[in-house]
């Protein structure tokens, strides 16, 4: 298996506060190559060919999304989604902590490719330190003429602004994110129109996850062919996985897509701590599926055929000593708090799920509760306005089906 590192390559080797240390390891040479030798069309074709797809969860082709905006005229925007508030997920934060300039270079390139003169970084409201790191990075990039008017002597102009969220999980959803930047409640909007057609202030807007963006410089330097050879053919490249819970070496690791869950937990994570017995693992944060021992050899990809969706890449290992009712309260409480309240099925459904979870914890669950659980989960799965409703039903549904928390 390939052990190419694209994003974490220079982690720990460079000083995140100093642009010189990124430049010293070849940083910003993709931008220079783009300005000197390439044009937007060629690079777009290259990104499409690489097969890079969105790391924010949905796995949409990044080349296609960039093209949708690039082909339109007039004012347009690029937004880097750094809202990252899925429980157990801190990969985008780690990118900023360890190498903010690779992200910034990716943002600059993405913006120039689509023809945007203005880009935004929408950062999680709790990420104060990361906001400061990025502010410093922006200042240094501007001093080095990688940003601002006439980027390294070319006729490209770009301004990058940081917009900080205010603590709402649903604002990671791109239309809610745009609403919140426009000064509205962070509720999702009806799609279509998609942001690529009518986004921020009604202008074509490309929203990409921070990890997705950080792949762009590498692809420009090393070519689409090299990239598409890494990992699973259906969604190539590497992925940042966040190992947590009952595991010897927790933290962020970079590995190819298509890797199995077992390899991640036992090879990269060093397995479970001594004396702990594996029970199940949850893939992709609180909104992710549960996976039992017998399914650990499933390769993780973004393909629709993949039985467990990769989501944010968080891998939570749960051992037999964990009180499952605590975890259920954690999931249901999270979605009850974070439901934006726009649609009835999610607003009420998440509330009722949490109530029932409380009774489960207290051992007071009734037959009526068990009956309504089925209805609530069906409703959340099938009738909500945005995917958050479905997310709220995923783990609970799996706990009933696979962990048999209600009996057989």
């Amino acid at each position, binding site marked *: 298996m390939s052990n190419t590192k694209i994003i974490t390559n220079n982690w720990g080797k460079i000083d995140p506060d100093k642009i010189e240390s990124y430049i010293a390891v070849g940083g910003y040479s993709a931008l220079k190559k783009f300005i000197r030798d390439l044009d937007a069309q060629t690079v777009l074709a290259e990104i499409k060919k690489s097969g890079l797809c969105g790391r924010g969860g949905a796995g949409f082709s990044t080349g296609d999304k960039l093209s949708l905006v690039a082909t339109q005229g007039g004012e347009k925007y690029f937004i880097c989604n750094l809202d990252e508030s899925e429980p157990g997920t801190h990969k985008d934060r780690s990118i900023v902590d360890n190498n903010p300039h690779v992200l910034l270079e990716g943002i600059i390139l993405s913006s120039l490719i689509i023809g945007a003169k203005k880009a935004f970084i929408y950062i999680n409201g709790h990420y104060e330190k990361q906001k400061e790191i990025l502010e410093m990075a922006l200042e240094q990039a501007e001093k080095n003429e990688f940003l601002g008017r006439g980027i390294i002597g070319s006729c490209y102009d770009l301004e990058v602004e940081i917009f900080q969220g205010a603590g709402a999980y649903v604002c990671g959803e791109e239309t809610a994110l745009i609403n919140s930047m426009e000064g509205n409640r962070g509720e999702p909007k009806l799609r279509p129109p998609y942001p690529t057609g009518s986004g921020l202030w009604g202008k074509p807007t490309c929203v990409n996850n921070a990890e997705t963006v950080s792949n762009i410089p590498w692809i420009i330097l090393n070519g689409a062919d090299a990239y598409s050879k890494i990992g699973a053919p259906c969604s190539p490249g590497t992925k940042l996985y966040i190992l947590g819970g009952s595991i010897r070496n927790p933290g962020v690791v970079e590995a190819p897509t298509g890797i199995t869950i077992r390899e991640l937990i036992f090879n990269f994570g060093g397995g479970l701590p001594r004396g702990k017995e594996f029970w199940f693992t949850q893939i992709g*944060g609180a909104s992710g599926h549960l996976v039992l021992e017998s399914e650990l050899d499933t390769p993780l990809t973004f393909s629709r055929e993949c039985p467990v969706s990769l989501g944010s890449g968080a891998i939570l290992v749960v051992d037999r000593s964990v009180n499952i009712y605590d975890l259920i309260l954690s999931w249901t409480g999270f979605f009850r708090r974070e439901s934006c309240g726009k649609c009835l099925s999610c607003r009420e459904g998440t509330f009722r799920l949490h109530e029932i979870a409380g009774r489960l914890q207290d051992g007071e669950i009734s037959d009526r509760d068990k009956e309504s659980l089925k209805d609530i989960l069906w409703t959340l799965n099938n009738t909500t306005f945005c995917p958050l409703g479905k997310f709220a039903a995923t783990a609970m549904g799996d706990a009933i089906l696979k962990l048999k928390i209600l009996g057989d």
Partner: protein
Amino acid sequence: MRSIEKVLLEFDPETRNLLPALKKISAAFGYVSEKDAKKTAEYFSIPLSKTYETASFYDLVWTKKQPSLAVQVCSGTNCAVSGSFEVIKEMENYLKIKAGDGFNSKIKLEIISCLGQCGEGPVVVVNGKIFTRVTASGVHGILEEWL
């Protein structure tokens, strides 16, 4: 202390600055009072209802005066499997209030979502100060200094 006018003047009166302005007001004065919300609405030339519509949505903007002691415990998945519910129970016993109870004007105990500090959980925030790897038996030690 800065006046509300001074805070508002830091922002161009465009709706894109509404959320950043509300966040700043909330942080500077502890919450967005009705008086300040009216001034904000005037400054941005928007209805008062619109100001509240936005302000009331976000966790980091308060529209009510906050108690002098605000304790928050993360119950995200990673914190939950490392024992945050035991910490919450111990806090409830010690502070003699229920988590999520909004009726006590002096103390608030709140269950919150992930802050991205996973791996160091359970995470507790007391009046903005972050504590990591908190255990039920460590609760007294943390809260003592604030009571």
